């Protein structure tokens, strides 16, 4: 029992030593001049590769997208269940049809609710 904890202790010691020694190594190497310091614009840019962002990154989206996103997720889940059912339509038979119909009906209630409450209006 205690020996098992000993292994964990060993790993802990290695982890601490590693995290402490790596920055120290980097610092001492640059102090000794082994690591060259040559700066250029490419190195200091945000992304060394890839596209530069155009415009501000704090773009605001209309919050109505959020309602659409939520309804989309609900219908997306419906699709996830409809596909496997459709593929196995024959084997699942009437029972499968009824199960999917019940599931569909519950989702439709949610959809009607969102509709009547005006979640789909873009005012």
């Amino acid at each position, binding site marked *: 029992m205690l020996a098992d904890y000993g292994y964990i202790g060993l790993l802990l010691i290695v982890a601490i030593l590693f995290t402490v020694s790596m920055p120290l190594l980097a610092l001492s190497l640059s102090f000794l001049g082994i690591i060259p310091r040559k700066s250029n614009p490419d190195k200091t840019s945000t992304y060394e590769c890839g596209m530069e962002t155009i415009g501000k990154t704090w773009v605001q989206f209309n919050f109505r997208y959020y309602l659409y996103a939520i309804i989309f997720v609900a219908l997306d889940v419906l699709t996830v269940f409809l596909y496997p059912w459709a593929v196995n339509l024959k084997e699942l038979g009437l*029972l499968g049809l009824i199960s999917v119909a019940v599931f569909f009906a*519950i989702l439709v*209630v949610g959809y*009607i*609710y969102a509709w*009547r*409450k005006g979640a789909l209006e873009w005012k």
Partner: protein
Amino acid sequence: MIVSELHLMTPELSLLGFALVVILLDLFIKQKKVLAGVSIAGLIVSAGFTLAMWGAPTIDIFYAMLAVDRFALFFKFLLLAAAGLIILASQDYVSKFERFQGEYYALVLISAVGMMLLTAAADLISIYVALELSGISLYVLASFLKDQKSTEAGLKYLLLGAVASAVLLYGMALVFGLTGKTCLLCIADVVETMPIAGLLDNPALLLGIILLAAGFGFKIACVPFQMWVPDVYEGAPTPITAYLSVASKAAGFAVIVRVFFVALGAPSWLSIDWGILFAILSAITMTLGNVVAIVQTNIKRMLGYSSIAQAGYLMVGLATVGVAVGADALGRSGLLFFLMSYAVTNLGAFIAVIAISNKIDSDLIGDYTGMGKRAPLLAVALTLCLVSLIGLPPTAGLIAKIYIFNAAVHHGLLWLVIVAVINSCISAYYYLRVVKVMWLGAPVSEEKVPSSWALRASLSLCCLGVLLLGVIPGSFVGMAEAAVRIFGS
């Protein structure tokens, strides 16, 4: 075949159907009172199905995911009754969220479905799903008033509830990792055959049990997982506070009894170990609840701390179940009877608070001054419920306490009962302070306190329950004993 088992789920399915109907009706009709009627009808139909199944033999359905037994049916009936009383009592309150009444009733029904499933769940996975179903509906309901306090209540409940769920999942993962099974009976089989040793030599099981107790402890609000209670109880709409303190707590106790007794009750050393764990938590819970309740000035906060203390008394029963090691059903039936009496008593107290606070627009105990003259009937009802919470005759609280403490003494938990009795004496102080303010204080105005017939009906049902359970407890005790007979023996 699974389809043929669906008819054993009719209480939940019918209630879910009514919840959907409520959502749809809300969209197309103007008269919102109809929604309350439909909800009540749904609860009655569901209760009818539950009653019809009472005599049926115990059976596990959906590959042992759910158990259909008297224990579950008893709790389902209790939860349905609580939800019905809450909906009746909400009639004076719903004007505060005029626009969202349909959602309110539907969420109350859906959380009731979740809790009913929770009491029947016989598999770690179905327990978790049911817990989340009831939990998520309650998080929304707690923030229903949309003012600052209510939003704070909802957010706190959500965040702490999520943490508790995570802890519970860790516990389940450990138990599953140790036993390789998720169904409670299968876990029991594996745990039973474990080599005889203490829990300390089995750290995985020890940690699993502690994490499970922590996750469920959040639901029943025992120390040290009670920190959400005062804030959530104060901020949430009062009917929801009552619902949380009664239904959510009852479901929590049901699932604890099932998990710990069915899955982890078999080797006696294990059972005694978690029995002692709950005994210690119980002593701390009731002491903290009662002592902190003394300094509260807001009646909802005070009832919140009082419900923590009551959870402490209930855990005396839980500890007895563990220490008694199986066979003996007395401890458990004491627990069920206590839950019954606690449900009617606490609901009654909260319903009276709804009526009074609605008129005076304040939850401060000081503002209840002179209520005995302004609203004598409400004051009498509130007094009766508070007296029952103390545990004085001729009320349900007395019989419940005698019953549960008697079982505890019988199984060698005398020290815990002494702590509990001292606590009951402490609790008399703050309960009676409300009574004193109501009857001896001078009224600030002569205005009467109006209330709807629905609220009065639910309040009188609660008071009737308090008196019936207190004066002729016999048949109710028989019901509670029948409910636990499915376990052990």
